[in-house]
């Protein structure tokens, strides 16, 4: 059996900017309040078109779980590591808070957590995934902007979406090979 390769595919055209994903993430993972304390964000992209025919896209994002993760390379103690499924995680007990991973991340996906006294970021809700559940942000979304699944399974929703539709990734020039895909 092939090892799983987890990924999230976004259909941002569906996003309502309700921010239910950000709230679900906060509650699910006990993310502390504070301006810099968040694992997910929803960026309001610039308006497109001409009045009165206007269009705006909302782009949710989070840690890209890069296959070539700069945060993992620069972490001096190996606190940041990748699981066999390619999920980038942090061992809070090994984090020395040098913040090199924060400086190295091209997506600004990491922050200093008061709760863990370490750097924190999206974990793909691995505690839920190991129980066969979806990440909280995926499950809570009222319009299914996010689909979570295994890229090695050709029948998974993520594989089918990526086969059927064109997609892009954030900052491909950084050669980080993210596991987050955005449908065009």
């Amino acid at each position, binding site marked *: 059996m092939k090892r799983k390769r987890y990924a999230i595919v976004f259909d941002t055209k569906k996003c309502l900017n309700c921010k239910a994903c950000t709230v679900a993430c906060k509650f699910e993972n006990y993310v502390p309040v504070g*301006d810099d304390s*968040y694992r997910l964000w929803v*960026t*309001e992209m610039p308006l497109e078109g001409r009045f009165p025919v206007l269009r705006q896209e909302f782009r949710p994002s989070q840690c890209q779980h890069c296959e070539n993760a700069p945060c993992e390379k*620069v972490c001096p103690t190996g606190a940041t590591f990748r699981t066999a499924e390619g999920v980038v995680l942090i061992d809070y007990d090994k984090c*020395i808070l040098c913040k090199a991973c924060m400086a190295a991340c*091209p997506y600004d996906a990491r*922050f*200093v957590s008061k709760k863990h006294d370490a750097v924190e970021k999206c974990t793909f809700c691995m505690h839920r995934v190991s129980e066969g559940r979806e990440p909280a942000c995926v499950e809570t979304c009222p319009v299914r902007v996010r689909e979570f699944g295994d890229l090695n399974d050709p029948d998974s929703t993520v594989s089918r979406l990526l086969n059927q539709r064109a997609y892009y990734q954030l900052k491909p020039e950084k*050669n980080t090979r993210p596991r987050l895909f955005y449908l065009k």
Partner: protein
Amino acid sequence: MTNQNNSLSHIFRVNKDIPAMPFIACGAALLLVGLIGVIRVLVYGQEAVYGVTRQVPWGLLIATYAYFVITSTGLAFIGGLGHAFNVQPFARIGKRIVLLAFIILLAGFTQIGMEIGHPFRLMYLFILSPNFSAPIVWMGIFYGIELFLLSIELYLIFVKSPKNHALSAATAFLTLMVGVAATSNLGFVFGSLTARPFYHGIYFPTFLVVSGIAGGCAILLLIHNIIYRFNIPDELSRTMSGLSKLMGLCIGAMLFLSAWKIISSLYTAPAEAYEAATALLSGPLAINFWCGEIIFALLLPLAMLLMSRGKNFMIMGAAGLFFMIGMFFTRYDFIVAGQLHPMRAGNAGSHVDVLNGLVHYAPSSGEWMIFALGLGLFFFFYFLAERFIALEPE
């Protein structure tokens, strides 16, 4: 017993001619301020006391860490030229060089110790769980070895014996090599960051080594002027002139490197590096850059060194002072400029607050207090040593 007393008197003596007391007092006051800063961090936590943010995670304390440790390795380089390569003018002031390098390195360690959230965890995890692909690990290893070698050098230069001479030369050579490796690795901590194009590449590993050697010369010129009350004896003329020539050469190289760094960051406006360069030239760091980096660290000291013609020691000392002030801004600018361009646009919902496309950072009072700790440690312990230890040239 008499021999032992003699050897101790060879090392320890009260040097009443050296104007050390004002600096010791100043150092003690700065140490006190620094200790209050440490208590604030311990009580309220780094997040409450420091001004660094999610977008600018490295701030003043990384700059001051670099300021101290790079100067220390520059001193070790000059000491290595003296002891290992037998450059006599530098070998004569070997005691002062090694002691300065040792104390300044310790001052640098106070900065990184207070910057890192878990410094004690670092100590055992660097042994139990090192990630050798991380430049920080190599930087830590090399600076650790540097401190160890400087301790051995300190012992060897004060305990004279024919056997020690060869060992001292070997240690000085190793210290020189390890110092260069440590500083260039510190540069690579930034140079390895593909996320930050202004940092990425070989510029910083190179520039930091060259500017460190200039810093070593500058502080030696300044310290000798203070120790001799701006009346340096003629017997040190070759030393002072050698230091001023080396410093002038390094400043020339720094000018060359800085000019090409700025030109290459502007030419065809490469994404993110361009914004960092314009932040320096005409943005929030412009005053620091033009006054601190260009005038104080480069043009003024270079002009003064040329004016001194290798003879006027007082002008050389002033050049050293201006350079050390300017170097503070140089270190600060390079740390901050590379992080001012945000990793995503500051649109609504992105949680990124930008002004003219750049994020903001200003050091907090707590960070300045920790800088005072490092400065205080240097002033207090170095001038205490000048007061009570025989450091005169050989």
